[in-house]
């Protein structure tokens, strides 16, 4: 038997190849067309959903507008409460710090002057007893310096004089 004999003509072979090619491209086109159609329909569905949500939003806004005065009051209160909290938490508490300093000074001293600013509080005090100053320096001020809530940076004695009784000016510096 001769294997070289081919009963299918070249023309028929080509026709078969063309048919396969046509089928493959037709399937490809069909897939792309179906996918495109599906995506368009899904997109339209999403757009309809978006439009429905937009309508719901408009309707909710209209309902809220009906509560106009109460809404305004609540919004104003909320805003003011936030601002009040902010102010209270950030106030420098100058009077509290001054009061804490004065509380450590024994009653034997007279407070002649106080000057309090954000980062420094100066107290001018006097006493006729030198021993009272010893107690102040060695015990009271050391105790005050250990109080971390005060956030003290340093304490300086800017002058100590005697005019009638003893006069001392103390400056308390704070970390701000």
């Amino acid at each position, binding site marked *: 038997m001769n294997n070289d004999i081919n009963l299918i003509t070249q023309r028929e072979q080509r026709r078969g190849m*063309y048919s396969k*090619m*046509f089928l493959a*491209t*037709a399937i490809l*086109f069909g897939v*792309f067309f179906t*996918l*495109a159609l599906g*995506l*368009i329909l*899904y*997109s339209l569905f*999403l*757009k309809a959903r*978006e439009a429905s*949500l*937009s309508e*719901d*939003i408009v309707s*909710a*806004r209209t*309902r*809220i507008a009906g509560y*106009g*005065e*109460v*809404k*305004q*009051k*609540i*919004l*104003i*209160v*909320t*805003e*003011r*409460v936030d*601002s*009040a909290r*902010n*102010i*209270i938490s*950030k*106030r*420098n508490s*100058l*009077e*509290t710090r*001054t*009061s804490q300093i*004065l509380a450590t000074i024994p009653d034997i001293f007279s*407070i*002649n*002057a*106080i*000057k*309090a*600013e*954000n980062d420094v509080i100066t107290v001018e005090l006097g006493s006729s007893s030198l021993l009272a100053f010893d107690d102040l320096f060695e015990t009271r001020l050391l105790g005050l310096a250990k109080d971390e809530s005060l956030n003290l940076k340093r304490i300086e004695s800017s002058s100590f004089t005697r005019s009638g009784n003893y006069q001392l000016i103390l400056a308390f510096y704070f970390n701000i």
Partner: protein
Amino acid sequence: MKRELFQIYTKYKKQILPLTLILLSLFIAFRVILPQFSSISQTNAAIESKRQELETLSNSIKVLETASDDAVSEDLTISTDALPTSKDVTKIFGALSSAASTSNTELNEFSLKIGGVFGKEVSPADTSAIGVPQVSVVAKVSSSDTSNLIQFAKRLDTTLPLSEIKQIDAVGNLGTFEINFYYKPIDLNLVSKKDKVVPLTQADRNLLNQLAEWKQ
């Protein structure tokens, strides 16, 4: 020429249809499918955003439905006492007098820098570091006892309108206080545009109770 074209057509006519289908497929892929993916992604994002907005609005409606007008009005009164809507000299004087009387001191005089009287926006000079407008007041207070002067400052801290002592200068029985009183104008245009209404938290409620105590 025509004949040549006819010959080419006859030779390749079986390839033309598959080629057309391929070109159409490519057209659909690039002109329809890819833009649709992008459009769907955008629409999904818009839907999510609108859904969240609707949820916020629904929650706002619930808050408004359950809010009692009387209770809200009371909260509004307390909050505007704490932060007046304008530079209210009467309220400032009231706070200084109240602090003086409860600390056994005497309010000798006070002066304030009014600044801007009218304007749709608060002048930058009037705005504090906290971001809330303020009025600077200098008050002169006297007392036989220096500690009472400090007590005056402490009382002022728990008196409405809210204030902050910037400087204390006490010599003998006379104290000079530099005080910032806070206020907050109401921008009704801005308020009416807002639709998000959230209920007061427990912390807000506690603060309002504290402010109500300070008011007394």
